[in-house]
Structures are given as C-alpha cells and as structure tokens.
C-alpha cells in the first residue's frame, strides 16, 4: 500500500511547503479538529468539577483548573454502570462468536461446496444485510416476548447476529474466494474430510478475514442501540448506551458529569480494541463495500 502511495504523487516534490500547507495541511487540520472536538469535550466534562462546569465566567470552559474523579466515582459506585459494562461485554462477545461460527460455515458452503442454489442463497444473505434494524425492531419485540426472552441478555445475543451474520458471511466469502482451489483438491486426494479442510487449510489461510469480521462485528454489537432499548426494561440488564441514556437522566435533572463519564468510559474499550486492529477494521469496512 505504501509503495502505491509513493507513486501516486510522483510530482509532489515540486510543490513548495507553503503551497502544500494551504492546499492540504490546513483543510485537513480543520476537518480533523471538527472530528475530534466532541471527544475532547467529552473528556473535559468527565474530569471537570461541577463548580467549573456550570460557571463559564470565572473559569475558561476549555480548560480544567481542578481535575476530579468525582463523576467517574459516582458513575461506578452510585449507578448500575458496572453491570451495564458487564452486560455489554457478555452480549458483544457471545453474539460475535455465534455470528463468526455461523458465517464461517455458511461462507465456506456457499463459496467452496457450491451446492445447488448456493449463488441465490449468497444473494439472499446479502439482501439481509440491507434490512435495517429500525424496520425490524417492532415485530422482533413481539417475537422476543413470545419466546420469553424479554428483558434478558439472551434476547440481544440471539438478535444481534441478524445484522452480523449477513455482513460476516459476505466478507468471508470474499476472503475464501482468494484461496486457490488446488490446495483443497490436494487435501481431498490425501483423504481429508471437508471439515478437516475447513479447519486446517481454509480457516488458517483466511485468518486475517476472520479477525476483520470479528473486530467489526464486536464493535457493531457494542454500539447497537435500538434492540437493546426495546428488548430490555430493567436497569441491571441494560447495556452501556441504553443505560447511559435512560438511567442517568432523572426527569429534568441531567447529570452531565456522570453522562460524559459514561460516554467516555463506554467508548474507551472499543477504541483500544480498534487501535490494536486498525488495519483489520478498515479492511472489514472497505471490503464489505467493495465486493
């Protein structure tokens, strides 16, 4: 990738620095400022004592004079936040693994077993990817209620795969397609079963694809909101996004400090994971669009 970049701007060195500054660095800086400012603002509000937060005359709002952990302490000890965090982790991890398992099997069958009608099934799964949760949540709520799953982690663990499986399957199909057929044929001649081929040849070779799909699926389920809002009613079963919005606002009293602390600490785990796997994340995001 880097070599292609170097070539693509072959005559770049002819440009003087001031010119490039106004053409590239300045607009880029402005856009990045716009993109990052809300995070800065979140962090400032998290560590700012109430006295400074609501007094813009005496204190400059952009800076913290006496940083405090009061809001975070309130969030962790006076609310169900630790439970929300725990639920979010459980739900995201389980639904990601369920989806990965189902998607690996499905993608392998569609792409490599080529059973009768596999192309149509592949297309149908892609269409499933285009069905947005906001038109599914009402009937799903009725189903979840009928199955007795209402207000429990299982309701989310079983429904999140509806948007994860189509995405993961589609992505993995692309990765499996790049593995040469000859490898599988050799293994078949040597007497390997299909399951052995999948476990020992196809999966190891497409590990980057599996990691990409997993990382992306995990962040998608961590961010999910509308199902969690609809299917969960008691505070101790909520996930972070739902808990923050519904439990930290008492009527007209907004606990801005605690809200911001929840927003910040709820984002940090995904951001850390993302920072370790940026390349995988990007390839998942662009791969799903490119196919």
């Amino acid at each position, binding site marked *: 990738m880097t070599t292609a*970049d170097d*070539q*693509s701007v*072959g*005559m*770049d060195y002819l440009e003087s620095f001031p010119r490039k500054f106004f053409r*590239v660095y300045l*607009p*880029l800086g402005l*856009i*990045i400022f*716009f993109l990052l400012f*809300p*995070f800065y603002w*979140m962090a400032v509000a998290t560590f700012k004592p109430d006295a400074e937060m609501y007094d*813009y005359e005496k204190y400059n709002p*952009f800076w913290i004079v006496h940083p405090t952990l009061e809001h975070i302490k309130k969030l962790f000890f006076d609310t169900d936040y630790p439970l929300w965090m725990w639920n979010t982790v459980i739900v995201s991890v389980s639904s990601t693994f*369920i989806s990965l398992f189902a998607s690996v*099997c*499905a993608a392998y*069958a*569609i792409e490599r*077993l080529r*059973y009768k009608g596999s192309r149509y*099934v592949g297309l149908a*799964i892609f269409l499933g990817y*285009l*069905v*947005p*949760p*906001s*038109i*599914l949540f*009402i*009937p*799903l*709520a*009725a*189903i979840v209620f009928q199955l007795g799953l209402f207000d429990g982690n299982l309701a989310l663990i079983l*429904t999140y795969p*509806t948007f994860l499986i189509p995405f993961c*399957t589609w992505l993995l199909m692309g990765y499996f397609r790049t593995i040469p057929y000859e490898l599988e044929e050799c293994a078949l001649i040597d007497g390997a079963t299909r399951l052995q081929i999948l476990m020992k040849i196809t999966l190891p070779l497409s590990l980057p694809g599996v990691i990409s799909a997993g990382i992306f699926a995990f962040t998608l389920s961590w*961010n999910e*909101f*509308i199902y969690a*809002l*609809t299917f969960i009613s008691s505070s101790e079963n909520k996930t972070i*996004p739902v808990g*923050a*919005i519904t439990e930290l606002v008492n009527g007209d009293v907004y606990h801005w400090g605690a809200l*911001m602390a*929840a927003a910040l600490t709820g*984002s940090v785990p995904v951001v850390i994971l*993302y920072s370790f796997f*940026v390349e995988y994340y*990007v390839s998942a*995001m*662009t791969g799903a*669009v*490119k196919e």
Partner: protein
Amino acid sequence: MAVMAESAVAQVKRSSLWTRAFESRNFLGAMFMVPAIAILILFLAYPLALGFWLGMTDTKIGGAGRYIGFQNFVSLSKDSVFWLSVFNTIFYTVAASAVKFAIGLYLALLLNERLPFKSMVRAIVLLPFVVPTVLSAIAFWWIYDSQFSIISWVLIKAGLITRYIDFLGDPWNARWSVVAANIWRGVPFVAITLLAGLQTISPSLYEAANLDGATNLQRFRHITLPMLSPIIAVVMTFSVLMTFTDFQLIYTITRGGPINSTHLMATLSFQRAITGGNLGEGAAISNAMIPFLVAAILLSFFGLQRSRWQQGGRD
C-alpha cells in the same frame, strides 16, 4: 447372536449411507448452512413478514390484535405528525448525505496525498465511526445545551452574536443541529471507503494525463470521478440507507422534539409502537419506509450496472 449380527450389518449399511451423504456437496452444504439459516429465518425473515402483518392489525402491547386491512395507513395519511416525520426524514437524509459526500470525498482526496504519519491520521479520522453513536451523541447534546453550549460561548466571545443560540428549542435550529451531528458521524465512513477506492486507481493514468498537460481539475473530472463512480454508488447507497433509517442520534439528542420537528419515521414508529403501545400503527410506519429503501437500493444497483458496463466489464 443372530440379532447382534443383524444389527452390525445394519450399522455398516447406515455408516456407509452417512459417509456417502457426507461426500455429497448438496447434503454437506445444507448442513453447513444450518446455523446461519436458522438464525436468519427466525430473527430476520420471519420478523420481516410479521412486520407486514402487524402493520395491518390493531395490535397493542400485551394483547392480540385483529386484521383491519389498510386502516392504519388510512389514518396515517390524515396524520400531520406522520407527514411531518416523512418530510423530516427526507430533509435529514438529503441534507446530511449531500454534505457527507462532499466533505467525505474532499477528505479522501486530502488523505490520498503524501502525508507524514499517514496511517495514524487515517486511524484518527475513523474514530467518530468507531465510537458508539449514542455515546458521542451525548457529547453533542452537551455541546448543544441551551445554557452551556460551547459554540454559543465562543461566538459571543468573538462578538458575532449577543444571545445564546437555542440549538434544540427551535424547529429549524434543531433540524440543522442533528444534521450536523449525523455529518460528523458519517464523514469518516465515506472518506475512508472512498480512500480505499482512490488507492486502486493506477498512478499511470495520472502520469499520462500529466504528460498531456491536464490540469488538476481535469484530472479529477476525467480520471478520478469516472474510476471512482462504482464505489461512490455503493458507499452512498449505504450512507443513504443508514441515514434514512437513523434512530440513535435523534433519540439521544432531541427525542423527536421540539414539537415533533425532528421526528424521523424510525423514531416516530418507536414512539407509537413501544412508548405508546400501538404495535400495529408503529409497524405500519416502519412499513412505509420500505418503498423508499427499495428505491434507494434499486437506484444504486442500476447505477452500478451502468458504470461497470462503461468500464468494459460484464453486464
């Protein structure tokens, strides 16, 4: 003895049937598909069909409904709040998508330049897309606060305005505010996916154009845009779909207010179905979104076909 021998024979026969089945692609394929298909049928296809049915009933939460035909749609067509939500959804989608495309393409072109710390810059740019939307929307809620908005404070200090702006109290202010938050969240997705498309364009095309004396604008118009158009079609379809069905930003920042002026069809259906308990009416509102979604998908599908054909690919 004889019985045992018989059962042993039967076992051999059965196992050979098993092994034969496991060599058949169709049988094996079906087995491999079971987990995915089971989940997708139970929690995707079935609810989709159930949604159509619910939209034609007067189901309430906690009670069975009866079939009432198109009555939900008839009453919705006389409901000014519903039509307001349709208007809001279209305005929100068109305004946000247009700006997201413009800024996203510009940002992609900027990121395609030779830059120091390029991969780090790209990782930072994507952050708004990675962070849970609801949590970043909380930050926007605080930025738009009527008393403590930092935007108002800065503008007052700069002497541009004299009173704090009521971002979320006035209908049009609120609409533009949520559009801005949506743009903030969507630009990284558009920019990074278009950047991936830009990186596949062969540099030799630009070199040839340079030798022929093409200007920057000409190179953009006659190389970048045509080469990028297939991926633009897909990215913008996804972006439009996500914007049109958006729920999280509105629910967090305005809950549809003030006086329903930011209600989207998704938030209105949630309000009617879950908060208000009229599952049938809510499902009818969701169903009303489907024609728009199908139109968006078809548009991009045919757009894609055309551009692929233009580049000499198969139809």
